[in-house]
């Protein structure tokens, strides 16, 4: 949460002032959606997240106003779905598939290994924002299980040894654990 200020530098300067560049980015996204129609809410959240890689509070406020829904409802929706993130994400993402096919082929051990190597727990982001570790429940590439996704790239038939090497290339894991 302490990183919020970084991405919304002008947010506290007062709503009447010149809109910040972030606010303009959000406004541009919202233009695609009719005012006062909550039907597009989940898609709006996706678009905001695609832009900022998480859902900044100010952006949610803007979206609630545009769609004509109470902020509480918007927050309720955003926090209900697993796919939305309320705090800044790491520069790199390591996603371990924990679908059933990957589970029976040893996914839990891979996840433990990433956690051990990086010191970042599943669902969390490193303090220096270098890495986010997360689980996903099946991406439909079951033939390749166990599968790990590093920055969007799929790596199948993963072994602990290879995973350590790949993650080590992304972030400096020395002295983390």
């Amino acid at each position, binding site marked *: 949460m302490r990183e919020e200020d970084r991405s919304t530098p002008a947010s506290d300067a007062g709503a009447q002032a010149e809109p910040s560049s972030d606010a303009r980015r959000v406004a541009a996204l919202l233009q695609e959606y009719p005012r006062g129609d*909550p*039907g*597009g*809410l*989940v*898609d709006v*959240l*996706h678009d905001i997240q695609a832009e900022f890689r998480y859902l900044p509070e100010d952006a949610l406020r803007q979206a609630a106003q545009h*769609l004509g*829904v109470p902020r509480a*409802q918007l927050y*309720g*929706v955003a926090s*209900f*779905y*697993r*796919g*939305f993130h309320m705090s800044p994400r790491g520069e790199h993402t390591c996603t371990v598939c*924990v*679908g*059933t*096919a990957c*589970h*029976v*082929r*040893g996914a839990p*051990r891979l996840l*433990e*290994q990433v956690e*051990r190597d990086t010191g970042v727990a599943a669902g969390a982001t490193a303090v220096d924002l270098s890495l986010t570790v997360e689980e*996903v*429940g*099946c*991406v*439909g*590439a*079951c*033939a*390749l*299980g166990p*599968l790990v996704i590093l920055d969007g790239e*799929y*790596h*199948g038939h993963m*072994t*602990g*040894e290879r995973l350590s090497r790949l993650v080590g290339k992304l972030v400096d894991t020395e002295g983390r*654990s």
Partner: protein
Amino acid sequence: MSVRLQDPAALTRYREDLVAARDPRQKALAVCGGTGCRALGALDVVAALRAEVAAHAAGCDVGLRATGCQGFCQGGPMLLLVPEGIVYQHVGVGDVAEIVEKTLLGGEIVERLLCTDPETDLQCVREEEIPFYQRQQRVLLRDNGLLDPTSIDASIALGGYAALARALEMGPEAVLHEIKRSGLRGRGGAGFPTGRKWEACRRAQGDLKYVICNADEGDPGAFMDDALLEGNPHGVLEGMIIGAFAMGAREGHVYVREEYPVAVERITRAIEQARGLGLLGEAILGSEFCFDVRVSRGGGAFVCGEASAMMASLEGRRGVPRRRLTHLSERGLWGRPTNLNNVETWANVPHIVLRGADWFSSIGTEGSTGTKIFSLVGKVVRTGLVEVPMGTTLREIVFGAGGGVPGGRAFKAVQTGGPSGGCLPADKLDLPVDFDTLAAEGSMMGSGGMIVMDEDTCMVDVARYFLRFLASESCGNCTSCRDGLAILRDLLGDITEGRGTRETLTLVEEIADTVEATSLCALGTSAVNPVLSTLRYFRDEYLAHVDDKHCPAGVCKALISFTIDAERCNGCALCAVHCPKGAVVGEKKRPHAITQELCIKCGICKDVCRRDAVLVH
């Protein structure tokens, strides 16, 4: 360039022109671009083929396309050569030059890229010779290998939208009648008769009705809907348009899981293309029928696969199921009559309209007609998508198409129906798979996920896995599901961690009964299937955990220990190098040993050992 097809005859002419412009002998290279093959580098293969063809076969008229999932994920990346029907497997960038030179230009087979039938040791040149495909009847998946899924022309040339034209001629009542007569039942898992659902929506009062395509394929281990949307988006869309026509719906939604970005892209493009040709939008094919579709992405909530939860999500609310005092066919999305079907259900519709209800109901069993796509995954030799007639036995799917369990391990169970299903043991393998039979045995066919488990899979751990998944996916609306599943998850945790007793098992069964009896939606009522079915068929394994504090499969960490067999260990020290805790000790070239106090049971030593010297007790 853009033409609007003014009537069904214009569509027929459009198709005839496309077909006439194509030489049936034209060679084409169809690289499987399904999720699995893409992850194995299929798109690099496509790029390399493009460059190689441009450099060496410039005069040769060759089509090149990345198709949707061709089903045989185990052989990925797969390459299909048309029109000969030659199949190459595990194609890498390094094989491309040889394929172009030998096969494309020289008409020779590159033998090392062929699949081998493990039973006969014979090499298989064509799809129909490969054991994985031989057991199948591919109605829905057939076109996946033949189509460029980004081209509506490719789809129309193969007969796409002919069923829509036919439906417009038949009229809505006749279409509805045909669907009812076909016996088609919902492929999402519940198996509700599609025709009856459509009829209720058609009869419902209201000038604005909706149809929804449920592509929120959340069952871990199931990816047939993804394959259909990615591989043949026009087939699914055509089904929806026909359904909307039969029910009098004006608007449609495709609700796609956010984990399937390619599916989102493909169906979005398909909708734009169909709109461009006048197959979607105002006055479809010159008729009075108007219908349009938009795509919505899910937010990553399993419960949104439930119809009323999905509608809440589409309305911009939390995906919480609601009590259905009136049917969704009367009061669904925005309180209006709505029909929701699964991707695979919609994909069946054009086939039924074109080939007739009699043809469709001749496939499968009396109560479950047509084919069903299963995703065969886990501890199985040939992983992939298998489309077979309903009523095919588990054995034919797992051992016939799938080739059984790899590595000489023993088959233990097959998990069917996703988190709502159950685990069936070896003596149930001769059961026919359809909507009704597996349910009677404590599992279900569900949406078609089939996860094969071998002797190294702990069934208590599997039950705990599903409870963990479902407890975190419970929307929290019903106390019994929200709290009951969390308690069950913790009790299973107790058992796998050595704190369980016989009383724990009794308590698990009691709570499971309560959750099943008092939850509102199917997530809760069926959530107990994995635990109840494993208790029913693998009780011995539970008893070993609670009585002997022993995990027979060697999975549950608290109950196992790793040791090194001094006879087999040659002191290579590979395990010592990789052990994250420095728990492996020993002199070089001498047998090593594991310091139990330091061991965290991560299993890395066992993975890296080349002499199978690390033992699990």
